[in-house]
């Protein structure tokens, strides 16, 4: 030992209690070493000095090894360090006095239970000094001493990673990352500390004033791209941090992402899954955010999607989506409304903008694995748009039931093969109207008396109808007009059978109306008084219906021509096949 003066040694042994015990037990040994270090640093030999942040005691005999070790580590200049364990951090701290290199962490496997084995190597003895520090004082003081010694060391260390990044945001990040780095290696690199939290909060506010709302994906993307991390890594970070998978970041998700980015910039490899401390920090931050905003959100959500039964977690997840008060979220809401309107026209998915799809998916996803999730999402999308179209949509859906009834009734000519034809058209809105149109006559067919009588009854009695008849009344005059135009002939009755088969193939709107006409043909004869008193509302309705029908007519005629061509082709094929068959048959017979 390099101590000169047995007196010192005596003091040490006395202080550490060995004298009392008569031997150097392990705690005593630790304390002794610590005291030696203190003495070598010039501090008085007292128990309090154990708590001080001291260099390791220098032992002459063993000096070479530690020096070699220190010199060996610097070449490993890459600042890769695995998330440190608590026992390693004191090692770092002491190392930093010599070399600001995090890599040392890895060179020291955590001194395992140093209390158990006597010192045999510099490694273990250093371990003892760590544990000594831990034993000698409570963690608080050690922590503080650590903290105090850290900034000076951090500065020199972080100047290097801070250097390459020249962007202003990165620069602002660099000075703060000093503190962050300090806290990184403190207990756990994945734990967000107060300073970090504060910094993240300020950044969040810079992007989005309200802490309770969301940052859109594109905004976050632009922001994080400034960190100059490669895109795949940013993508991975996003995947880790967007826990609710909504394509946007809540405050806690933002903190998580930011923290991961900072960690990555400081050289930590990205974890494969979200570290626990980040997750817990996440949930803790989540709690204050959501309750305050939960109430109005739920109201809003209910107002918008009242008809859907949704699970509670889903509502909570989507309430965040639906929350609107801030500019960023206003954008989101606008996009959402736009999307719903767009989808309301008809659920056309092919080219919606990016945030529309995730939006839609957020609604489908929390509804985990229900087979009707997409379907419900579609229905949901169709709900919000303006009420006038809605009855039509419902009508179309309801009409599917009508079709079922038709099938049961064995309605001739209505076969499944008939149904696919209308939607095969590329343009969707007309396609959507087509089924409506088709369903119109079916509906009237299915409940012709009901429809027409109700309509006529309305005319006659001008009675208030229940809502369901609303659409029907709209369609009632529609068919009525057309039938009047086509001069409802009694042939309609005989056509009921014939036209239905060709109607199946040839979509003549007239024949369809004829088809609609036949059953009520009788009633038609009696009640031919065409809606004489067209109230303005009915007129409007009629005009709207007329317009729509004209469009569908055009569509259907186009479809008709296409199908005719296809039919021709198929016929030709059939003919050729038959002729081949004929050729082969005599061959086979002979």
């Amino acid at each position, binding site marked *: 030992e390099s101590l000169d003066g047995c007196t010192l040694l005596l003091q040490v042994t006395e202080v550490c209690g060995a004298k009392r015990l008569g031997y150097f037990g392990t705690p005593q040994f630790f304390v002794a070493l610590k005291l030696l270090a203190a003495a070598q640093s010039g501090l008085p030999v007292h128990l309090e000095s154990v708590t001080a942040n001291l260099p390791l005691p220098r032992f002459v005999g063993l000096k070479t090894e530690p020096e070699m070790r220190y010199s060996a580590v610097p070449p490993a200049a890459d600042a890769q360090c695995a998330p440190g364990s608590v026992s390693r951090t004191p090692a770092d701290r002491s190392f930093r006095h010599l070399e600001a290199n995090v890599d040392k962490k890895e060179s020291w496997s955590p001194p395992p239970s140093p209390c158990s084995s006597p010192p045999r190597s510099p490694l273990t003895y250093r371990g003892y000094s760590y544990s000594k520090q831990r034993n000698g004082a409570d963690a608080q003081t050690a922590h503080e001493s650590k903290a105090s010694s850290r900034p000076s060391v951090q500065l020199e260390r972080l100047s290097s990673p801070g250097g390459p990044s020249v962007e202003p945001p990165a620069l602002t990040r660099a000075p703060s990352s000093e503190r962050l780095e300090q806290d990184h290696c403190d207990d756990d690199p994945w734990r967000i500390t107060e300073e970090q939290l504060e910094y993240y909060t300020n950044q969040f506010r810079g992007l989005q004033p309200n802490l309770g709302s969301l940052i859109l994906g594109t905004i976050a993307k632009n922001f994080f791209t400034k960190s100059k991390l490669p895109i795949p890594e940013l*993508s991975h970070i996003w995947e880790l941090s967007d826990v609710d998978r909504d394509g946007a970041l809540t405050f806690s998700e933002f903190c998580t992402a930011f923290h991961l980015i900072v960690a990555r910039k400081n050289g930590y490899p990205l974890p494969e899954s979200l570290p626990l401390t980040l997750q817990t920090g996440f949930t803790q931050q989540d709690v204050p955010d959501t309750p305050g905003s939960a109430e109005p959100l739920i109201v809003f959500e209910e107002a918008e999607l009242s008809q859907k039964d949704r699970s509670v977690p889903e509502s909570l997840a989507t309430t965040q989506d639906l929350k609107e008060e801030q500019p960023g979220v206003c954008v989101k809401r606008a996009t959402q409304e736009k999307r719903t309107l767009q989808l309301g026209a008809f659920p056309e998915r092919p080219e919606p903008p990016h945030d529309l799809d995730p939006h839609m998916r957020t609604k489908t*996803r929390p509804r985990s694995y229900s087979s009707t999730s*997409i379907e419900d999402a*579609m229905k949901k999308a169709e709900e919000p748009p303006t009420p006038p179209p809605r009855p039509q949509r419902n009508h179309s859906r309801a009409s599917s039931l009508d079709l079922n009834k038709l099938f049961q009734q064995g309605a001739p000519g209505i076969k499944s093969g008939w149904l696919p034809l209308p939607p095969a058209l590329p343009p969707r809105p007309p396609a959507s109207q087509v089924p409506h149109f088709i369903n119109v006559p079916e509906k009237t067919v299915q409940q012709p008396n009901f429809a027409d009588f109700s309509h006529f009854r309305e005319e006659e009695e001008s009675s208030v109808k229940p809502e369901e008849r609303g659409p029907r009344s709209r369609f009632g005059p529609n068919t009525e007009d057309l039938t009047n135009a086509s001069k409802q002939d009694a042939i309609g009755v005989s056509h009921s059978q014939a036209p239905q088969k060709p109607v199946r193939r040839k979509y003549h709107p007239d024949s369809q109306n004829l088809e609609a006409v036949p059953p009520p043909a009788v009633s038609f004869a009696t009640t031919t008084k065409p809606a004489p008193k067209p109230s303005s509302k009915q007129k409007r309705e009629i005009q709207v219906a007329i317009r729509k029908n004209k469009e569908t007519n055009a569509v259907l005629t186009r479809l008709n021509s296409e199908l005719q061509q296809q039919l021709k082709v198929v016929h030709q094929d059939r003919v050729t096949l038959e002729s081949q068959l004929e050729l082969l048959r005599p061959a086979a017979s002979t």
Partner: protein
Amino acid sequence: MAVCIAVIAKENYPLYIRSVPTQNELKFHYTVHTSLDVVEEKISAVGKSLGDQRELYLGLLYPTEDYKVYGYVTNSKVKFVIVVDSSNTSLRDNEIRSMFRKLHNSFTDVMCNPFHNPGDTIQSKAFDGIVSGMMVQTG
């Protein structure tokens, strides 16, 4: 357990193909490519309401003596194709459906990522993880 899983974009170029590496990957690529024809045919023949998830799942596209090919199309015309080994105990339809559902969910997760541009090949570890979980576990 699938032998090959592919995600094909709307324009019919692959966004992601992964097959069990021991086998001839080219053969699977070819199979997936030819299955696209069947997918197109099924799409055009699908019923009135394209939003119905029943029609998102296309079912068995065609069986060969070695394997069966199943298809699934999303609302944005992104197609998922799963090739399953016939020698496997034939997977029930529900299992295939659940596989597609999982694929769809993780695909939407990938799409949600603002750093992912639609049309790029999918480079997501989470997605890879899901797909690996579904592939045949060969050594």
